[in-house]
């Protein structure tokens, strides 16, 4: 059965250009991978990064896992689409693909 909060996750990612589900906030990340992902997004030209702290909004974490079937955080969404975690956004940044997604 789908987690009842999946709708909340979906609403969040569809109403913001860039969303990161992370530990801590973009200003005060509580995990190295989350911090790095935020830095990479900024470097790639993201103007506003909407952060969701999975440590303070715990039930959302389970819903997120149900929604993406991806077991780790951070998880980054651009234009409502799940793009990946820290490794993937970093690699996409190095290839210039992340910058493309963040244009417009």
């Amino acid at each position, binding site marked *: 059965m789908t987690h009842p909060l999946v709708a909340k996750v979906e609403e969040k990612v569809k109403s913001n250009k860039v969303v990161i589900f992370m530990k801590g906030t973009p200003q005060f990340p509580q995990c190295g991978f989350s911090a790095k992902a935020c830095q990479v997004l900024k470097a790639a030209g993201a103007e506003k990064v909407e952060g969701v702290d999975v440590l303070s909004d715990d039930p959302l974490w389970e819903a997120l896992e149900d929604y993406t079937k*991806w077991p780790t955080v951070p998880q980054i969404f651009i234009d409502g*689409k*799940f*793009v*990946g975690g820290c*490794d*993937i956004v970093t*690699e*996409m940044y190095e*290839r210039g*693909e992340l910058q493309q997604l963040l244009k417009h």
Partner: protein
Amino acid sequence: MTPDQLKSKIETLGPGTRADIMDMTGTQDHYQAVIVSPTFEGKMMIEQHRMVLELLKTEVDSGEVHALTMKTFTPEQYKKLVGNN
């Protein structure tokens, strides 16, 4: 799982798939893989990674492969990358 076993398994992903495996810790469970496959064509990076993880589901779930860092390329992307060096 030995590097050779991992390589063979990943190369069953599709025709023309090539995998280069590095044992990061010498313990045969933390690996880095560079994977070039025509199967990746037209797929987002997250989808490419998912394809590989799906293929290795048993080994990842059992902990036989504890960590796998991947770099995935289509043959065309890889050619471009190597050409630049």
